[in-house]
């Protein structure tokens, strides 16, 4: 965010005016779309095999093509899971993390075709369909993740930008702390009730709230807002006196409210970027367990 401070002197610019990095290449189109082409080719080849190879319509999974698809699918699932290992060991070059991610995304989408053809569209209430269902949950959550990665970062940047440039996460806390200190000072002359209202705002943890609050960005029991409302209610019928401490407190509370809203929007967007992984990753391991049970059960009752 060095640019933000450099540009502070120049006229404020709008968030949309940012210069994009020209060298950027999305993992979706990595290497000229190599991996989506490979995946599409694989998917079409498998669909063509499924259609044109004369095989029984029942128990398709136990035909030679069914076993082949199953083996490809199982190996693919294990390899896709290895992204979690790979991303912790960063290496450059041909098999860069971006290459891996690109392959992970496109081959993962291809797995819909591989896995579903392997079922032969024969689904039921059993461990086999459980594995397929978990696989689909993982893939769909991954698709949600990609969609969020495509949409949310822009919103995140836009939220952090204002007339004074971008604000970092650390600066958000600092701003709140500063406002709290000012509020504390300004509220000293207040009577007990009003002081207690300001105190309730100060005592509120800006990071409080459960997952639901985070994901929706709605905090119905926000003490700062309650304090602002209560102070204004009490002030509404009193004569205005210039320089009254309540005016300053009210202005400070309004500013704090604005800062808090922005931070909560930031938290909401960030939590969206993370939440899909809380489905994607644990269900992957459930899937590997179900896959193991599926394979063992097939050979157990061979």
């Amino acid at each position: 965010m060095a640019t933000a401070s450099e540009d502070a002197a120049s006229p404020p610019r709008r968030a949309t005016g940012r210069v994009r990095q020209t060298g950027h290449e999305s993992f979706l189109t990595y290497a000229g779309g190599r991996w989506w082409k490979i995946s599409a080719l694989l998917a079409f080849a498998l669909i063509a095999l499924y259609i044109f190879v004369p095989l029984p319509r029942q128990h398709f999974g136990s035909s030679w093509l069914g076993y082949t698809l199953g083996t490809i699918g199982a190996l693919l699932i294990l390899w896709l899971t290895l992204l979690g290992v790979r991303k912790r060991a960063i290496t450059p070059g041909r098999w860069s993390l971006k290459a891996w991610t690109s392959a992970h995304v496109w081959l993962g989408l291809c797995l819909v075709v591989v896995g579903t053809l392997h079922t032969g569209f024969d689904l039921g209430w059993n461990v086999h369909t459980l594995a397929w269902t978990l696989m689909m949950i993982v893939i769909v959550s991954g698709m949600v993740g990609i969609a969020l990665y495509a949409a949310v970062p822009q919103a995140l940047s836009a939220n952090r930008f204002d007339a004074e440039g971008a604000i970092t996460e650390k600066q958000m806390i600092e701003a709140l702390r500063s406002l709290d200190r000012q509020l504390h000072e300004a509220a000293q002359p207040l009577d007990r009730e009003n002081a207690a209202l300001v105190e309730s705002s100060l005592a509120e943890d800006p990071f409080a709230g459960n997952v639901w609050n985070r994901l929706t960005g709605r905090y119905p029991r926000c003490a700062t807002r309650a304090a602002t409302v209560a102070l204004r209610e009490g002030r509404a019928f009193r004569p205005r006196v210039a320089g009254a401490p309540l005016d300053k407190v009210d202005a400070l509370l309004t500013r704090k409210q604005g800062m808090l809203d922005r931070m909560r929007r930031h938290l909401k967007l960030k939590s969206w970027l993370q939440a899909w992984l809380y489905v994607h990753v644990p269900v992957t391991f459930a899937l590997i367990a179900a896959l193991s049970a599926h394979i063992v059960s097939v050979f157990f009752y061979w």
Partner: protein
Amino acid sequence: MSFLVRQIALKSDGSEIVRAATVEGAELTIGRDSSCGIHLPDLAVDPRHAVVRRLGDERLTIESIGEQPFELNGRSATRGEIELSAGAELGFGGHRIQVSRDSETGFPDFAVRRVEAVSESAGEHDLGSVYTLKGLLPGKRMSAWTFAILVLVAFLAFPVWSYLTYQPLALHKDARRPAGWHADMAWSSGHLSDAHAKLGGDCQACHVDAFVAVRDNACMTCHTDDAHQHIADRPGQTAVERLTLARGTPTGFAGLQRSVALLFNRPPGRCVECHTEHTGAGAMPATRQKFCTDCHAGMKTRLPDTTIGDAADFGTNHPEFRPAIVVDPAPEQPVLRRVAWTPALRENDGLKFTHKDHLSKTNGVAQMVLRRPRVYRGEGSLDCKDCHKLDSTGVRYEPVAMEKACQTCHSLTFDQVDGTFRTLPHGKPAQVVADLRAFYREGGPPRPANLSGLARRKPGDAAMQASAADYARAVRFYPTRSEQAIAAVFSKGGMCYDCHVVTRTGATATGGFAVENVAQNGRYYHSGWFSHKDHTRSDCVACHTKAPTSNDATDLLVPGMDGPGGCRTCHVGESGTHLASVKVRDPVDSGCAMCHAFHMDNGPPWEPASRRKRKAHIAEADRTPRRPGLPSQMALR
């Protein structure tokens, strides 16, 4: 009277800054207001919160000014006393005040410290995690392990436990698991067929050993009697050996598949290779043609001692039909023999019949039909169904009954008494003979008039004697007329002889005549299945083409495979194949299972009600739209 107030603040390096002040007076107020002796800039503290007074030299009292309490030695209070020598701790909002006696001056000493941050946001925040969902959701690692273990326990460990629990029951026909749910049912890939539905949750009825593919001994636990003798054991060769021999050694891709199957412990020749299960509730699906032709296509070369002809596909490669025809209509057990069908094949069922004459639209038969509109619905000629009636199953025809089919024209009436007709009994030659003899014996010949007392007399007895002699001769010879009638009935031109083969080898009771037995053949094809019900839309003569031209009952009117009216006129192979020489107008795809079934008896093959109504004939396995209807069949055609 003074109080010593020391405000202690912490520097960022941890050291303390102490600002000491002495407050004169008998009282010391504590509050947020800057005029207070102890000024606490704390919003949780009242502007004037409490007041401290000296009570003698050793003691202090502290009392709330408003109703707001404070903390005295950790407990909430609105008033209290403090022993200076013992000291005390006061708490106001985010501040702590240590009360003691100053050792130098002897004044009460109040050490004031801020212990809580001004606001919650001022506290320490770990920037690395505070903006994430950490702590709000169960950790990914934690839930990954939990889910994985739950799945493994529920769908792997628990089913294996079920298997181990009931393993001793395996291969016992009547030992079944208790009804209800068992964990390994979660492994079932689909419902069992109706025939095996009663096995229900007893997986081990078939899956006897872990990691061992289902073997025939599991099937034979129950199917001790009714397992089909598809291939019989022969001396020195078991059925399975013959079966594998008949299949031959697969080559190419099939050989690869076989070796992979062997690698994974799936030997060939097991019952379940054809009889697939877990394909959904309903009838077991018909076996696909491939499973038949794997062996039967070119089997002679691999199994030279077989008596069965090679068959690869009905449309192109199928042995000629071998109808079972009557060669001797013996009374008790007619002799049937299976011979290859030819257009010139003849069958002797003991009857004489002229299909051509009876189906004619112009001859006497047609005239008779025309004159009897109440019997024949006013039509101009006989129809097949006037004589041939379908049986109750609709599959085959009932034997033609003389009384119903023939007698309406070919009457056996011989006498009329006051408007009532007397009829010879059909099928009972001895009764016929007896009836005729009785007919001619009744009453005797009329007595000549000149034998009566009223006769005009000629001189001499000679005339009377002549009359008496005539009469006596008539009486004597009266029965001879019955014998003539009997002979006439049984001989050429007589009622019986028209339709039956009559010989003179009979007993006295039948006047020396014998009627040869009639054996109507109800079913010609015993290895294959045919149902007239499925062919009701076709005209009879579309298949029985010779019927309108045959005037000899020994002509075999049953169609064969080829030729006019043969099955191949409509039926083509499972994938639509047919010989180039055959012209098929409306092809019907016909796999092996359309006509061939195991457990075949005289009744129609067992079918579930849902299928019985259907006219479609293609094997169930290829009909079920489980695999979305994709043009694999068309592609191969």
